[in-house]
């Protein structure tokens, strides 16, 4: 019987205490902000969209290897020896043309694992977080600053250079073979002891 009244009294008192808490909160100012007109302040270390500064990129592929979801695609083309691509901001000399640097932001998980291995700190996270698109293809960002014709040009240049080198090597080999044939023929006509220096030269030529 006593339990009955105790329960009743407890019910009433705890309801009143709860109501007091809620009433007090009526006068506390709101903790929310009105988003599109007022934006919250982002801290410095935040992780939003990535940006790649292509002037500093040396094409080392470390970021693509570090990415856990494989959202970075890099293709590079070796430069010709006479081309000067300049230096990065911390003094490294660039030796590769980067012809493809795609980051697919639909796949990126914003984990920041690509930022740490970069030797020139050219890939970093910016403070842009409002970059939604209507079409998924628009989220594939291409960072390379060369025009498409230039990229093709670089590839062609390399192929030409390599072909030229191949041709030179073939010509040099042919010339060496001819010289060897001429020397062998000379030997047939005048048998004499082979000159050690000539042998060495032939070996060097090979």
């Amino acid at each position: 019987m006593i339990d009955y009244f105790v329960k009743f009294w407890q019910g009433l008192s705890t309801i009143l205490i709860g109501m007091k808490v809620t009433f007090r909160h009526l006068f506390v100012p709101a903790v929310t902000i009105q988003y599109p007109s007022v934006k919250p302040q982002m801290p410095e270390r935040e992780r939003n969209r990535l940006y790649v500064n292509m002037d500093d990129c040396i094409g080392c592929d470390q970021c693509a290897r570090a990415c856990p979801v494989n959202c970075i695609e890099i293709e590079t083309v070796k430069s010709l020896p006479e081309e000067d691509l300049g230096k990065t901001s911390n003094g490294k000399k660039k030796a590769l043309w980067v012809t493809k640097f795609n980051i697919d932001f639909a796949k990126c998980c914003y984990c920041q694992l690509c930022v740490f291995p970069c030797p020139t700190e050219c890939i970093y996270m910016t403070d842009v977080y409002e970059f939604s698109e209507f079409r998924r293809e628009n989220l594939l960002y291409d960072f390379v600053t060369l025009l498409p014709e230039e990229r093709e040009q670089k590839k062609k240049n390399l192929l030409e250079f390599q072909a030229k080198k191949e041709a030179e090597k073939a010509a040099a080999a042919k010339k060496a073979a001819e010289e060897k044939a001429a020397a062998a023929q000379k030997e047939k006509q005048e048998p004499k002891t082979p000159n050690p220096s000539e042998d060495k030269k032939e070996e060097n030529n090979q």
Partner: protein
Amino acid sequence: MMYDWLNNLIGSPILAMFIVSLLPLFIFILPFALLAVLAERKVSAHMQDRLGPMRVGYHGILQTVADIIKLLQKEDLVATATDKTLFNFAPLLVFIGSYAAFAVIPFSGFFIGSKIDLGIIFIVGVTGLVVAGILMAGWASNNKYSLLGAMRSAAQIISYEIPTLLIILTVIMLTGTLSLYDLSELQTAYFWNWLILGGPAIGIEKILLIPLMIMGCLIIYTSTLAEVNRTPFDIPEAESELVSGYHTEYSGMKFAMFFLAEYANMFAVSAIVSVIFFGGYQSPFGYLGNTLGLPWLIPIEQFFWFTAKGLFFVFVQMWLRWTLPRFRVDQLMAFCWKYLIPISFVILLLVGLITLI
């Protein structure tokens, strides 16, 4: 009186009757329902340290208008396997049951929809239509969850009508009148004449009655809260258990009718509690019209006090909703039958004894 005044003004009794019956609906109840939806959202927001609707209109005032326009242009889905007549008729019944109660509530000393002698009993009878409407809605939806919700709601409303009626009986016994108009007239100006503080008669009974009246007020407030399906008694619309209870299958304007009917019902029961215990439209401090000698000011003041008291109780209902968790169905019924009803009977007995003194 409004009817007489209009009759004298216009000359045609039918037109006067028409205007008298439509006035509370359009000038008071519909705007109130619109504002109450907004007020609920703003009150809940400020209690939870946030802002609520802020974009539509200044600080979100036109939010309900936007909601109604949205609901109006929605597709009116009626599933094939439902019972179409019942499905279409149910929201109407609920709406009518809630709004018809306003016919006998005195808005001020000058205006009352219909001055019948059976005031309170008419209200209790008409709000029974709501039960029929809810059962129809649950059954006709052809949905297991809606049916469950509707049955629970019907059980809840019917059980909680009993403590309401018992307390009303107590008050009737005390004052001897059923009509709400006479009840308000009885509790003449100054707050110590209100029934919650014992009534206008001075004497030993007044002191004895005070704790009983306070208890009775709490009981009737709680049981009318259960009748309008508000938390902590909102099992029928419990979102986390049955998605949305008996109005799951409704969309568009029919849903809007359920919605508006709930808020009108809230005001109706707040008005009843304030009329019975808190003096209805009577002011607690005397009338400015009397002190200034302007008799035409008095009905306006009375209307103001009536609205203020009704709005205060509606605010308390909203306050309770955002503070308390929900009862489980069996605990709800246990609360009614094991706690409220015995205590109401005891109050009835004691008040009866006191009136004999």
